[in-house]
């Protein structure tokens, strides 16, 4: 895609915005305020997000739903700190992500975000253990501690006996569990899963969803991006996106 990101055109932060510390004061883990994301395609400006605001509290289990082209993926990229908004303010665990540079974003992805992808995205030549170790490598953690923490994370997803296996020696469900272990190993603020069951059969998909429920019960905050109603039904709260805006935001239970 040749789209160029438009830099924030104006200081979009409202003057009344609370200071960073206040984001925690109200008990929210994530605070998104009027997020815009604009791409320039030739002469045209395309608004993938048109003013999205929400907050997510610790230990919430949220599904983000929407048809393709709704801006769902763009929102996921912003939540995951892979991208910054063209306008608006995004605060994660008290840190203003929307004003961060490349290196700071890399650090926050490393520490606060645990990604789980539809296609697993494991390194094919590395063992399960080494895949899980990878975020710890980028965090600069010494070797011994890395091994210890990676082993614990794999044990948490019941793969203690598959540590030296490479991805092609594992089933789809096992691969996704390795990916979950990798996402959790740094103890992130949120687990961000993008269609985590999209490449799995129904039975294995259910198995992964049960794992998510267990992790939620253990206190993790989970954000699930999906277009499948069955998958979204596992969450306590569903945010529907359409045409770059929040269409609905429902809590159950």
């Amino acid at each position, binding site marked *: 895609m040749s789209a160029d990101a438009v830099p924030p055109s104006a200081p979009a932060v409202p003057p009344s915005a609370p200071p960073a510390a206040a984001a925690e004061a109200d008990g929210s883990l994530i605070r998104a305020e009027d997020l815009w994301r604009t791409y320039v395609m030739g002469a045209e400006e395309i608004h993938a997000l048109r003013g999205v605001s929400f907050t997510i509290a610790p230990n919430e289990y949220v599904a983000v739903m929407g048809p393709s082209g709704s801006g769902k993926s763009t929102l996921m990229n912003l939540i995951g700190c*892979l991208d910054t908004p063209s306008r608006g303010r995004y605060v994660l665990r008290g840190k203003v992500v929307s004003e961060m540079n490349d290196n700071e974003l890399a650090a926050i992805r490393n520490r606060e975000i645990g990604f789980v992808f539809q296609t697993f995205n494991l390194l094919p*030549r590395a063992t399960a253990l080494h895949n899980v170790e*990878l975020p710890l490598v980028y965090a600069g953690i010494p070797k011994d501690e890395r091994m210890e923490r990676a082993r614990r994370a794999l044990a948490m997803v019941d793969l203690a006996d598959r540590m030296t296996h490479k991805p092609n020696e594992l089933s789809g469900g096992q691969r996704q569990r390795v990916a979950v272990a990798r996402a959790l190993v740094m103890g992130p603020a949120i687990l961000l899963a993008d269609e985590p069951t999209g490449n799995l059969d129904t039975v294995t998909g259910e198995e992964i969803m049960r794992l998510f429920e267990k992790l939620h019960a253990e206190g993790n905050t989970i954000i699930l991006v999906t277009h499948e109603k069955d998958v979204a039904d596992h969450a306590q709260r569903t945010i529907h996106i359409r045409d770059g805006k929040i269409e609905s935001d429902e809590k159950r239970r």
Partner: protein
Amino acid sequence: MPFSEAARIAMSALRANKLRSFLTVLGILIGVSSVVAVVAITEGLDRYMANQVLSLGSRSFSVQKMPDIITSRAMWLEMQKRKDVILTDMDAVKAACDACGEVGALVQVTRTVKHGRAKQPDVQVMGITENFSRIGSVRDLISGRQLIADDVDTARPVAVIGADVMDAFFGETEPLGKTILLDNHEVRVVGVADRKGKIFGESQDNFVWLPITTWRKFYGTRRSIIIQAEARTMDLMDTAQDQARVVMRARHHLGFAKPDDFSIETGETVMDFWQSATRGIYVVTIVVTAMSLIIGGVVVMNIMLVSVTERIREIGVRKALGARRRDILRQFLVESVLLSALGGALGIVGATAFSMALAAVLGGIMSADFSAPVRLWAVSLALFVSSLVGLVAGIYPASRAASLDPVVALRNE
């Protein structure tokens, strides 16, 4: 990310594409191995030359009409106009040079020598003073005796022969006391010199020594002689040459401004010439082979660009997991440097094999011991240069990888 981690990733990436990695470094391999081999062989030749040439003796020098090294026909014609060096010059040098130990003379022609019906062509027939074999490197005999002062004083028809002459005429039979024929002059063999072998394929054993007086009876007195002198110590080498030069200039009545009209030669003269010639070969070869390193670098850069393109998604994943720009940059730079250094290392192995093979072949041709040592400095330089090539070739691909947008990279199929 620590360096060891980057190196581990790079090794696994290179191992995953063994053939491609090997083909990629072929250019660097060939470049490095030719540089290292050329350096080794040139040094081997240098050493061989030094051994052979300086075996003339590092304290000895000669005063002669013509220089050892003549670089043009015009120069040769010019040198021909010089005065001959004559026996009385030798006596004058002997009298005036107190820094000299031995002072002797030799004069030579190349002739076919006969014994019965056997003929030996191209023999150096040398007329010498009795001290000749003591000047420079001592030439021992394997049998018989050296020429003595009395032989010279009385112009006795006796000879010491080289091993080639002995082989040609006598084989296993006793040569001492036998007669050989030099242009219808009979001389009696009194000694046989030990075998020296060949320098660049030219035998050092195809000669006959006569007393210089006998030689002059056979071949006349009009030929320029070569004065052979030896300084008493190494430190007196320059003094001895200067004293000889002063004597010769005085005898030739040369004014202040006039250059010498004779030549003083040492083993070093030949060595210097040889080294300046090989230095030229050195430089040219290294420049030419450096070209192949540049080509090698371009190939490495090309393959690194392919490698980055193939792994865009991996880069996206790494960035999502927290890799910073500099982590990705380092990963690909390390891979590129490692790849090239691997080529350099293989090149050293190739060079070692190549120079050993060539040393064996050259040694065979020159029928002499010849070694082409692969030097540590050449090895380190080869590794350094190939790593540098890898570094330079890797910068562009690596910075492209590092600046990828993670969102775009993750979407890549």
